[in-house]
């Protein structure tokens, strides 16, 4: 039948959404946080996080398959109304505050690296209240399809960027391979697993996919591909700038685009990368905005949740304006990540445990 807005999305669109949510992290202040902890072994952190989250994801997939509904409904079903609401509140607070701080961070990058004279508010409004709100308002289908159209381009340009800087890389910079020591690296990996915790959060969209298999395939790919990309880029940053110099670079991706050369003629391609990056950013924030609205809608039992998009977008711009400088925002972000890592790692295990317990009780 013609697909008159069945509201469902396919595996490729879902993968593209995940890629847009997570892979874009290589471009913001995330690598700096990771380099701070992982030193030359920073590239292992995303992989360790991904391994840990993969375990968590397996638990999530098990429950999703069993209940065949979205994560929110499962939380309510398993954890009860009161406690479930608390969990959803936590999720909403994490997602929303992470979006607000990220929005600030992205606007800071633009102002620091490209438009030093532009007002911060203008960039934030254009990004979140403008493009992201519009895209989120067109619905999840629009987010997924737009992401699907542009994600192949992002992948291609990432490869081009690395090729562009390839002759300036020194592989020896990556040693000592274990950086601060194995234990430290593993600890760091656990700490930063919230970077990829989106893979658990998107469980709330599970009922919007056509089939469970689509969800499983897309989420497994959507975890590993961004993690691998992050690992690759962290390695490239270290190989490019060397340790400890790399610690002093605030936004390594944007410095990398400045160094990239395509032949001898086009040696300043950073504006093109800026444009592509911002298309990605618009989709990234649209996804976050949409998920925030979805969570808040469920939290306060408000069915027409797209109407929450506008107030949430406005609020997030306001919250984003709060930190007095980019460094403060980054500190808050780190705190948020470390505190929410545990929540997202343990939530699926917790739900799975309740499920087992209840099953045991019934028998």
């Amino acid at each position, binding site marked *: 039948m013609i697909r008159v807005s069945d509201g469902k999305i*396919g595996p490729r669109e879902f993968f593209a959404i995940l890629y847009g949510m997570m892979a874009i992290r290589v471009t913001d202040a995330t690598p700096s946080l990771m380099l701070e902890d992982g030193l030359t072994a920073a590239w292992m952190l995303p992989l360790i996080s991904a391994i840990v989250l993969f375990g968590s994801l397996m638990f999530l997939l098990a429950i999703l398959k069993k209940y065949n509904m979205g994560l929110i409904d499962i939380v309510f079903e398993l954890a009860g109304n009161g406690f479930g609401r608390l969990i959803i509140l936590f999720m909403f607070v994490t997602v929303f505050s992470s979006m607000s701080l990220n929005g600030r961070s992205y606007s800071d990058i633009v102002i620091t690296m490209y438009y030093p004279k532009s007002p911060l508010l203008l*960039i934030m409004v254009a*990004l979140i209240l403008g493009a992201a709100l519009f895209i989120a308002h067109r619905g999840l289908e629009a987010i997924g399809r737009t992401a699907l*159209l542009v994600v192949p381009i992002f992948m291609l340009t990432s490869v081009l960027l690395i090729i562009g800087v390839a002759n300036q890389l020194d592989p020896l910079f990556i040693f000592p391979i274990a950086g601060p020591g194995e234990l430290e690296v593993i600890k760091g990996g656990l700490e930063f697993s919230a970077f990829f915790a989106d893979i658990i959060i998107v469980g709330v969209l599970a009922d919007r996919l056509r089939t469970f298999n689509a969800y499983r395939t897309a989420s497994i790919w959507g975890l590993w591909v961004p993690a691998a990309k992050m690992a690759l880029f962290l390695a490239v940053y270290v190989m490019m700038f060397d340790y400890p110099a790399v610690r002093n670079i605030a936004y390594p991706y944007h410095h990398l685009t400045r160094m990239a050369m395509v032949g001898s003629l086009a040696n300043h391609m950073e*504006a093109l990368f800026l444009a592509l990056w911002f*298309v990605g950013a618009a989709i990234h924030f649209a996804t976050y905005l949409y998920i925030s609205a979805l969570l808040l809608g469920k939290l306060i039992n408000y069915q027409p949740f797209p109407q929450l998009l506008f107030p949430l977008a406005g609020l997030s711009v306001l919250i984003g304006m709060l930190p007095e400088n980019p460094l403060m925002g980054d500190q808050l972000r780190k705190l948020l990540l470390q505190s929410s890592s545990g929540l997202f790692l343990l939530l699926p295990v917790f739900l799975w445990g309740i499920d087992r317990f209840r099953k045991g009780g019934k028998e």
Partner: protein
Amino acid sequence: MGGFLNRLFGGDEGGGDNTGTEGLPTSFSDSLDCNVDQFKAEFRYPENSALKFRELLIPSVNRRAMVLFVDGAADTVQINDYVIRPLLETDRKMEGLQSLPVEIKNNILTGSGSELLEGFPQAIKKLVNGSTIILVDGEEQAIVVETEGFENRSVAEPTREVVIKGPRSAFIESAAINRSLLRRQVKDHRLVSETMTVGKESPQEVSILYMAHIADPALVQNVKESLSKVEKDAILTLSAMEELIESRPYSLFPSTMTTERPDRAGSFLLEGHVVMLMDNSPDALIAPITFWSMFHTAEDQFLRWAFGNFARIVRLIALFLSLLMPALYLAVVTFHPEMIPTDLMLAIAASRERVPFPTLLELLLMEITFEILREAGIRVPTPLGTTIGIVGALILGQAAVQANLVSPLLVVVIAITGLSSFAIPDVGLSVMTRILRFIFVIAAHLLGFVGLALVLAAMLAYATSIKSFGVPFFSPLAPHFPSSRDLFLRPILKKQWLRPLSMSPKDQIRDEPEGGDGP
């Protein structure tokens, strides 16, 4: 979306026989004079000389009969040969038969299409469409004979969708001939041709064609419902109809398209689209369309694989240039000058040195002049056509630069943009890019590449979320569905065995590629 669905499934059923003949007795009386008077009154006889009568006596039954037709609509030679002569020359004995009109229709008239009618409204509709009505004294039925004789031009070559290689016939203003052109392309007994009437006061017939075994019934139903909802006194051409059946008349993105090539319409039919034809319209209206329908041309499939794809790549580049070139120039010059190689940048700076305007103003000035030039080029009579070229080339190209109104580089930018927009095959797509271009220019002026990126993302989100009769605009690419991958590029014909599933054709496979080289 909710509103759209409501409009789609709710609402009352329009259409029907709204022929502007209220107050007419629905059935004929058995008196010939009475019936004829009724026709005369309807056609405002005698002030209106359009209605013609020919009274005669059918010798074999010795009854009076009246032949009516409308001047200009019916073909008098056909009436002579197929109606009047057989009636006068017959010597069949017709007493004792059950019905005189049936007998006349079946065994006396020699025309191929004739039927019986019982009411005035239908009879009047038939008359204005060129048919001839025969009324026999004492009978309550009228016989209609098809004697349509509107003037037609002959089938000519396409003017908008020109190809170097491929068939050369184009649709003309007659729906009957257009249907025949299409039947000639698609020789399949499952090609259904339904007829619907639109317009209340002067009804026009719209033919809806689709392949019964391919087109999705829900889609056909969808199109028919939008047609039946059209409420307008008169719709003269398909172009007017196009806007009336659209779900987003204000949108820049079209949801239907027209083609003047029967072969193209035929290939749309075979992919499960619905084709509409109408008298007076020298083109076919294709109902659900996607981006690809507008991006592809007929020739892509006629040319060899490499040439066809090369043309597509060129067109894709042209599409992007036409959409983004002025905005990119503006963004680079005002926000990101470091992108330009130093020598070129010095040259630009030197050429801009004497231009008093900011780049945006310069750009808009040139862009608007170009749009005026284009509009003038369409309206100007052919003998004056060369004038436009001279005015464009000399005044805009050279004089503007010499007068220090614009910089030479900008002329190049605008020229590339203009040229690119001519390379876009579909009118709807071309107009869309022309208007969107200005939005991009404003965005680039405000925020450089960041503004461009945000508007581009928003535009993509809009484009991917809209639907034409339920079919997403960018399907089957996004949302992804299995298809023959005839999207940006096309695979060789042998590999295009899958129909685009986003149209949900009932029969998904064109031809199974089994064993070895396949069919």
